[in-house]
């Protein structure tokens, strides 16, 4: 996986939350959004439908809709406004 995009600079002491990114376990913490978790794990949310390249969110406030991501259960969610929850499984490829 690519080097993480985000760097955690504060609020490190929170309860762990176990999610799954592209089949691999990742430990987020309570209060992370799914976008934060994805960008602490790598640098991609999805491959753009209308090219080119990967996308990794843009506005972080629910406005640009750049961060929609596929969940393993076949639904989609807006990563920057979705909190992580134990067992959440996402597919970025």
């Amino acid at each position: 996986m690519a080097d993480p995009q985000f760097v955690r600079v504060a609020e490190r002491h929170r309860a762990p939350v176990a999610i799954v990114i592209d089949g691999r376990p990742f430990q987020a913490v309570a209060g992370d959004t799914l976008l934060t978790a994805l960008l602490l794990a790598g640098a991609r949310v999805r491959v753009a439908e209308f090219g080119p390249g990967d996308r990794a969110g843009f506005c972080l406030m629910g406005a640009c809709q750049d961060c929609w991501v596929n969940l393993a259960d076949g639904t989609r969610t807006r990563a920057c406004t979705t909190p992580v929850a134990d067992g959440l499984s996402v597919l970025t490829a």
Partner: protein
Amino acid sequence: MSEARIVIVGAGPAGVRAAEALVNHGLAPIVIDEAPAAGGQIYRRPPAGFARPARVLYGFEAAKAQRLHAAFEALRPRLDYRPDTLAWNVSEGSLWTQRSGTIERIPFDRLILCTGAMDRVIPLPGWTLPGAFTLGGAQVALKAQGCAVGRRTVFFGTGPLLYLVAHQIAAAGATVAAVLDTSRARDSWHALAGLVAVPTTALKGAWYQLDLVLRRTPWHRGIRPLAVMGRDRVEGVRFRDANGTEREIACDAVAFGYGLKPETQLAELAGAAFAYDGAGLWLPRVDPAGRLAPNVYAAGDGCGILGADAAELAGRRAGLAVAADLGRTVPPREIAGIERRRSAIRAFRAGLEVAFPTPTELAATLPDATILCRCEGATVGALRTVANHKDAGEINQAKALCRVGMGRCQGRVCGFAACQVLAAARGVSVEAVGRLRAQAPVKPLPLAARLP
């Protein structure tokens, strides 16, 4: 007498103060907000369990943030507050909402829209690469998630948020690789006459700039951004400095923006008329009390960017207008006090526009291959082609032909620049190409959304 049903959209500074004014007059509004907690953008509250004190989160604005949050908590028992709820349509006297996949129609007697703003964006080559964010986005990452958007971040664009967010990131211990401002130092001097109208705010802005200097952060003014560089993700920024020299700075993230842009989609669906502001934005027309259309009011940055203090005043003013329109007695002195404070802020904001002018010409000079609409992957060249060869002279017509502004965000992000590109290609004024029309739902609904 059955009580009038009043609905407020937005629990930022404007929405909270509107709710407070109504409650003070014995009215109990419904307050809808997409966010999980009240506070809006500037006073956004981090999730439960975060430990940083208000002083760290909100800096100079900590006291105001705490006052607003406390005011809202005190109102809670009198409100029907619905967080995590998207308002996605206004039609025939009803507001349509969606929460956790459940859709609801809320008929209203009065509606107050306090929908706020987002970053004003001008695309450039490379801006869709992972690692490129808005200035506001970089701030959300820090404030609400405790994260820096990169290890070495270049901040560029213009406006107060440029300096504020760079300062906050540096203070949090992450590296600010550079601050690149399209405005020039002399713009600030020309703006002084306006800026002194609210001297404390002007001084805070000056402090953020001084802080950059003290930290020896590379800082350029009068720049023109040329491209965000990188193959698969952000690796640097190329820009032209004030002397005309092209330079590059290596980084792994960029945060950029050129001021803010009001969220006007619901106002439009509610029947607002719009006026061109002369500088690229179309603003919903409201009277001084915030009346927008029959039974619909609006307040705060959603009507034009005046900042958080003005949003609190406008929210209160709109709440009082609803109370008065429902037959409550509102003392004229109270209104006069609000108006006095608002006019000082207007003078200050006019100064900010002079200090940090939006470089609108940037969009018109973008290379054809630049992605303009990041939702649809549509390029600047595609828009120019329909402008020149298909005779599309109006932005909605051009959108239908080349898909710019047709994606999931409804042109929130690219609309500002798209109008500039189209106007330049047609050789007409930006006003003449019109305004991207909003459609319901104003934001995407989950596929499975259903009526209860």
